[in-house]
């Protein structure tokens, strides 16, 4: 067990990934978050989204450090090209951390997806920055210590003995208001219906609360920059999601109750299955395990899944 899980109590440091996992299905949370089981192949959507968000975060960091638009764009395109090249490494530790890649080794990442490809990732980064880079009405907030509010890892005590942790891409000012800014990618056309899904999203409520608590900034809500990734183009739409103080407090109260419920499940080692979640979003990765006789599930897990280091919300980026 790592520091975020107390062996007597259960998980004590939480983020939107682990809380979302428990809300999806307690058994999914048990297998994925507590025990660390994963499919051997990584999610193309996750990898594409991470490279994309990282590139934009770094762009604003480079800009805040004085780079002009083209210089910062070239830097993040280079970083994204390197991150999507499957290098060889001298040691397994370097390979895990993806550090000190060996020049002259490897090959480009092949995603196996029709639109979320390496080329389309680079195109989407450049097109986003072409649209918003120098022309963004949102300005990055400057923190009290003078640093730009980008790449912000946070943690705070949301209730006695419970930490709420996470990572904000950036805090921005739009007019007189401050917002957390977040990036999402999709294959769908982005319209009002697409933005509606985020209005009750715990991840965003948690971000807005963190912005207020940790960075001492009154945060109005979250700006979502949605990127539609298509075969021949990337298209961007921006949506504003405002939260009231009462909404944030309501979310925090409910989140704490769910965390306590998960701790109780941990102490009892009683992981209920939410069978209504089995087929959501293309199907739960553990559906095949749960579909077998309980006596054989561990064998199925060991055959089809790998155990990776457990998800730790206390890890900063």
């Amino acid at each position, binding site marked *: 067990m790592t520091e975020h899980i107390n062996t007597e109590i259960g998980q004590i440091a939480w983020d939107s990934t682990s809380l979302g996992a428990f809300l999806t299905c307690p058994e999914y949370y048990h297998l994925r978050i507590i025990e660390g089981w994963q499919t051997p192949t990584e999610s193309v959507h996750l990898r594409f989204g991470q490279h994309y968000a990282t590139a934009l975060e770094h762009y604003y960091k480079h800009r805040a450090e004085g780079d002009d638009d083209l210089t910062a764009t070239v830097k993040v395109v280079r970083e994204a*090209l390197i991150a999507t090249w499957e290098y060889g490494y001298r040691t397994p530790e370097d390979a895990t951390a993806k550090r000190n890649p060996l020049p002259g080794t490897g090959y480009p990442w092949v995603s196996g997806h029709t639109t979320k490809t390496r080329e389309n990732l680079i195109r989407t980064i450049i097109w986003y920055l072409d649209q918003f880079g120098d022309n963004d009405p949102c300005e990055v907030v400057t923190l009290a210590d003078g640093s730009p509010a980008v790449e912000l890892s946070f943690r705070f005590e949301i209730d006695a003995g419970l930490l709420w942790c996470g990572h904000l891409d950036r805090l921005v000012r739009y007019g007189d208001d401050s917002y957390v800014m977040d990036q999402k990618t999709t294959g769908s056309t982005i319209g009002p219906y697409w933005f509606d899904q985020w209005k009750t999203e715990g991840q965003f409520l948690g971000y807005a609360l963190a912005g207020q608590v940790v960075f001492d900034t009154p945060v109005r809500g979250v700006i979502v920059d949605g990127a539609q990734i298509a075969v021949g183009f990337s298209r961007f739409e921006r949506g504003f999601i405002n939260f009231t103080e009462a909404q944030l407090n309501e979310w925090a109260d409910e989140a704490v109750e769910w965390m306590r419920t998960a701790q109780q499940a941990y102490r009892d080692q009683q992981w209920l299955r939410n069978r209504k979640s089995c087929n959501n979003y293309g199907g739960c990765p553990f559906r095949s395990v749960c579909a077998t006789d309980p006596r054989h599930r561990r064998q199925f897990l060991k055959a089809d899944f790998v155990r990776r280091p457990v998800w730790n919300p206390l890890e900063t980026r």
Partner: protein
Amino acid sequence: MTDIAELFRRDPLDLTDDDIEKIVEHYRKARAAFNLTSKPTRKTKPKVEVDPNAASVLKDLGL
């Protein structure tokens, strides 16, 4: 093979800033071209105006 495809196939650690600027320029031009062709088309008036009164008369006559 195009220049851009060739740049994508090269080890990025070997790419110069000029190489990457070529990639940036290529995609910026592609976006400008895309924006020129993807403007929403304006609704045009129908070539034949339908008179709703005339339509209802025809319906009454069973035509």
